[in-house]
């Protein structure tokens, strides 16, 4: 295999609390190539903290440490904040759950996407405009000229998320971190948004970290899966082999999902005492 895009070894995230420090990410290690890597686990398992720490987005008093956090040839933990800003957005982008909180309410959709490009590349205005329109088309917005002029509150949830994806992908980053990118959307538009992410990732030969609590979504969408539980990766497998997972937590999750030919009168719920010791 070629040199990975991202190499993470023994990543830890700690927060001080009234009862002493708590570690919410506990020794996570993985590497990412030009592939779709899924991180799955129930809410609170540390998925977002893992994604955010890659971009150094954990605010004090949170503390991030790692034996290694390398992107291309850069050590992400030691580079200056100025260098980090060049990585963020341009080289590694992140799409979050709710576009409402990530878009600037007083700038039009077109201006925002254009700015995402202008920050990283010096281009004439006209050319930026054209690139933005092309990008809006790439995320399958039917009337890009019209949407260019809309403000965030004037677009639906599904369209807002496409706008976010356009903004994150316009500088052509090599890694996209998508943190529950469709969880705030009506289930019906989730499929469309995922298809768009998938096409753009594949076309541009990027690496994707896809964070979700939805086991089946992740297994259908990714090449490889990390299962997180309480801040640790408890299982790693090829997406196609999820049904052969061995960790009791993963097995428990799989068992709790109803099947199309369901005959069980009751669904098993997780018995955490089974694998939680001490």
């Amino acid at each position, binding site marked *: 295999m070629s040199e990975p895009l991202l190499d993470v070894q023994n990543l830890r995230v700690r927060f001080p609390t009234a009862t002493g420090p708590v570690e919410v990410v506990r020794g996570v290690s993985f590497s990412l190539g030009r592939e779709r890597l899924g991180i799955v686990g129930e809410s609170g398992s540390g998925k977002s903290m893992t994604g955010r720490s890659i971009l150094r987005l954990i605010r004090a008093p949170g503390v991030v440490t790692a034996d290694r956090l390398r992107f291309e040839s850069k050590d992400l933990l030691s580079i200056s904040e100025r260098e980090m800003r060049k990585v963020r957005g341009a080289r590694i982008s992140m799409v979050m759950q709710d576009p409402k909180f990530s878009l600037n309410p007083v700038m039009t959709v077109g201006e925002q996407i254009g700015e995402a490009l202008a920050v990283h590349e010096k281009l004439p205005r006209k050319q930026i405009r054209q690139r933005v329109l092309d990008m809006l088309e790439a995320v399958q917005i039917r009337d890009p000229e019209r949407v260019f002029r809309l403000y965030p509150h004037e677009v639906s949830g599904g369209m807002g998320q496409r706008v976010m994806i356009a903004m994150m992908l316009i500088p052509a980053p090599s890694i996209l971190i998508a943190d529950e990118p469709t969880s705030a959307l*009506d289930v019906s538009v989730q*499929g469309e948004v*995922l298809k768009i992410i998938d096409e753009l990732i594949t076309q541009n030969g990027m690496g994707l970290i896809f964070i979700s609590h939805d086991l089946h*979504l992740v297994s259908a969408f990714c090449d490889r899966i990390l299962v997180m539980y309480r801040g640790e990766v408890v299982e790693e497998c090829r997406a196609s082999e999820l049904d052969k997972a061995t960790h009791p937590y993963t097995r428990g999750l799989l068992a709790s999902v*109803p*099947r*199309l030919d369901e005959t069980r009168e009751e*669904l098993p*719920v997780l018995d955490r005492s089974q694998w939680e010791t001490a």
Partner: protein
Amino acid sequence: MNAISLRNLDISYGDTLVVEGLSLDIAEGECFGLVGESGSGKSTVLRAITGLAPDWEGEISLFGQARGKRIDRTFAALCQMVFQDPYGSLHPRQTVDATLSEPLTIHGIGGADKRVPEMMEACGLDPKFRFRLPHQLSGGQRQRVAIARALMLKPKILLLDEPTSALDVSVQAEILNLLKRLRREQGLTYILVTHDLPVVSFLCDRLAVMRQGRIVEVATVDALKSNTMTDPYSRELVEKSTTRLSA
């Protein structure tokens, strides 16, 4: 007697007709699944039954009584709705206690002191949550509160609109088990709107597949499980469900 009977129902928003010529009979105690692609009108059907989408023609009857177009208190007591997003449907500054007492107060029914803890217990909510706010609860606990609220007036019908779509799978299993048990214990009739066919397999007796505002097929859950539904579009949905990308 049918719990729910819909006859030639046309439902519009303004000038746009979104549900057309829909007829359905749902027996008392039945759980009926309503599936279909986004925008096919599933939620709109539930909204018309509860009075939230007043612009309809045709007939809606619950237990043999035709309902009018307005919000109607007797119908509210008979038929309640639960939504996908428990966070959005609960008042952020209302405690569990206030949320569950409110329907009783509105309908001038006393005894909240007794009914609230009883209903919390029936819905698997620990008594210690009684004075908590929605943001102090997990997603699954919030959905339990939404279900408990819907049951406070002892309705006979629950309309469930994607009730577990926003939840972790482990939590989804708990809520599905809860819905199954409540239906059995309280003799409830359900319409369950979902994009998730396996959820229909677990909970329902029959289902209807909707497309562009019309029902294309009504089938038993056995036909769903054995993949013997007949309409090509229904079969396509089942196919998609087994490969799992896109809803």
